[in-house]
């Protein structure tokens, strides 16, 4: 039986207090919802209420304890910096990058980029969406969202491959400069989101994936920038979810020690992750969208989810979720099977 609001359930989970059952959430999910309704992300934002009602209804149907708004992408920044984006693609694809070389960032004034970004039509529509969602759901459920994190945003300016080369080959100072620049943009966007009703900052850093870079580089460039975002916004929105794709088993201890509220992890060993986290942050995960949610039956997804909940129950501080964003071909009933397993996981 549910005795808590979704917000109470999440808040208690983040602070390690008791909950009525393990909460369930998805990481973003907006492109899944848009695709299911025959819309692109821009089509969703072009609806009269910027897609707010559709999103709230969809998250309700999925049974999630967190809603998501904010586009978790880089389009407004890329446009403000002179790059171009194909808004007709399902998730909006970057067509041309603003930078050819990492030192090109010196030619940009971050204040002007932020000011231009705010004039971008879909930036404002995103704020409209969030505001409308907040007025629909009131204060009983948390709304998460944000751009990519600073490191991933910096990679978007240059292209991931070139950015990777610069990490090894370039000047450390240049890498720091571009990541700091991106951090200012992320902070400015999050400030606007918070003003319009966001109460869970999400920092997805897919380019910091353990499949792409070594843990040293994470601690050298990614963590300080993500911490800067958290520290600058701590008084307005203290709860921060960090997501990193792929192999993150070697990063759990560092993320937990840094004091982020929750770490969203991909398909890694969750018991080891809980031990590494040591109760310092909540874990969010970790069913594989491709190998489990898109490939298995709803009964199998339910059983896997139930087993994970049982495994995580003794640790507390756990939110059942997919390990990454939802792929558009995942069946609704598979996501609902996860929600069912979480709702049935009465805690002692």
């Amino acid at each position, binding site marked *: 039986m549910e005795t808590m609001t979704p917000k109470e359930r999440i808040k208690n989970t983040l602070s390690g207090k008791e909950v009525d059952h393990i909460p369930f959430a998805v990481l973003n999910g907006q492109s899944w919802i848009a695709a299911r309704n025959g819309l692109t992300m821009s089509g969703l934002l072009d609806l009269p209420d910027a897609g707010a009602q559709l999103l709230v209804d969809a998250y309700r149907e999925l049974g999630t304890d967190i809603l998501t708004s904010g586009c978790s992408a880089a389009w407004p920044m890329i446009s403000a910096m002179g790059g171009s984006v194909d808004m007709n693609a399902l998730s909006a694809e970057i067509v041309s990058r603003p930078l050819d070389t990492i030192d090109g960032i010196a030619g940009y004034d971050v204040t002007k980029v932020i000011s231009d970004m705010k004039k971008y039509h879909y930036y404002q529509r995103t704020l409209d969406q969030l505001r409308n969602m907040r007025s629909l759901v009131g204060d009983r459920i948390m709304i998460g969202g944000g751009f990519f994190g600073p490191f991933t945003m910096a990679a978007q300016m240059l292209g991931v*491959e070139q950015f*990777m*080369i610069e990490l*090894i080959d370039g000047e450390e100072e240049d890498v720091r400069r571009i990541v700091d620049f991106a951090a200012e943009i992320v902070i400015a966007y999050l400030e606007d989101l918070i003003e319009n009703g966001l109460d869970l900052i999400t920092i997805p850093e897919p380019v910091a994936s353990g499949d*792409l870079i070594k843990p040293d580089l994470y601690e050298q460039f990614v963590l300080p920038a993500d911490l800067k975002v958290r520290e600058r916004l701590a008084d307005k929105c203290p709860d921060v979810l960090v997501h990193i794709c792929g192999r993150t088993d070697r990063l759990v201890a560092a993320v937990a020690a840094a004091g982020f509220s929750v770490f969203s992890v991909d398909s890694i060993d969750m018991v080891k992750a809980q031990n590494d986290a040591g109760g310092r942050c909540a874990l969010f995960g970790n069913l594989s969208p*491709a*190998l489990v949610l898109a490939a298995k039956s709803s009964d199998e997804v339910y059983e896997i989810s139930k087993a994970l909940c049982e495994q995580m129950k003794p640790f507390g501080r756990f939110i059942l979720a997919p390990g990454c964003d939802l*792929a*558009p071909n995942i069946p609704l009933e598979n996501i609902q099977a996860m929600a069912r397993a979480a709702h049935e996981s009465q805690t002692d």
Partner: protein
Amino acid sequence: MEILKEISGYLQQGRAKIVKELVQQALDQGVPAEDILREGLLDGMNIVGEKFKNNEIFVPEVLVAARAMNMGAQILKPHLAAAGVEAHGKVCIGTVKGDLHDIGKNLVKMMLEGKGLEVVDLGTDVSPETFVQTAIEQNCRVICCSALLTTTMPVMGDVVKAAEAAGIRDKVKIMVGGAPLTEEFCRQIGADAYTPDAASAADKALEFCMEA
């Protein structure tokens, strides 16, 4: 030979400029181009591939090593042609239709080149017909298909069907790879091999080419 070891070592460190200079120096000393290729560049790239497979190094390190190999290979190219040295085989590679992600594909391409294979890079958003047509026209022994998205994975099955329809299925091996893929999916669509990482993909492609 000391200079070949140096080429291999600097390549592993991604020191492109030094590799280029050493390759030229080795040629000037009369070292055969094929030895420079195999005992210098390819040796270095093989070690990089193994370290990548064992999680000792990561994508940035592979990218800079591959760039060093390419710079060295550019110097060697005319000398290899003059000496009649041929690649172990020819492979075409691309990210399948509807998918624009190319880091994984590019990594595999670099590793394939590191094995001494000639690679036809078809880029991203490649249709099944283009894969098959290229394999026919360029006499490729292997087609390598990459996908990052679960939504584009099924296109790999269409590549297999297109190869069957074109009557080349017994002449060409089809390999698949990408984050959401599995061995099971590979079997379902009737492809010949799934490999979980770029270095293993290159090993497998070389094996297929050597079988031919």
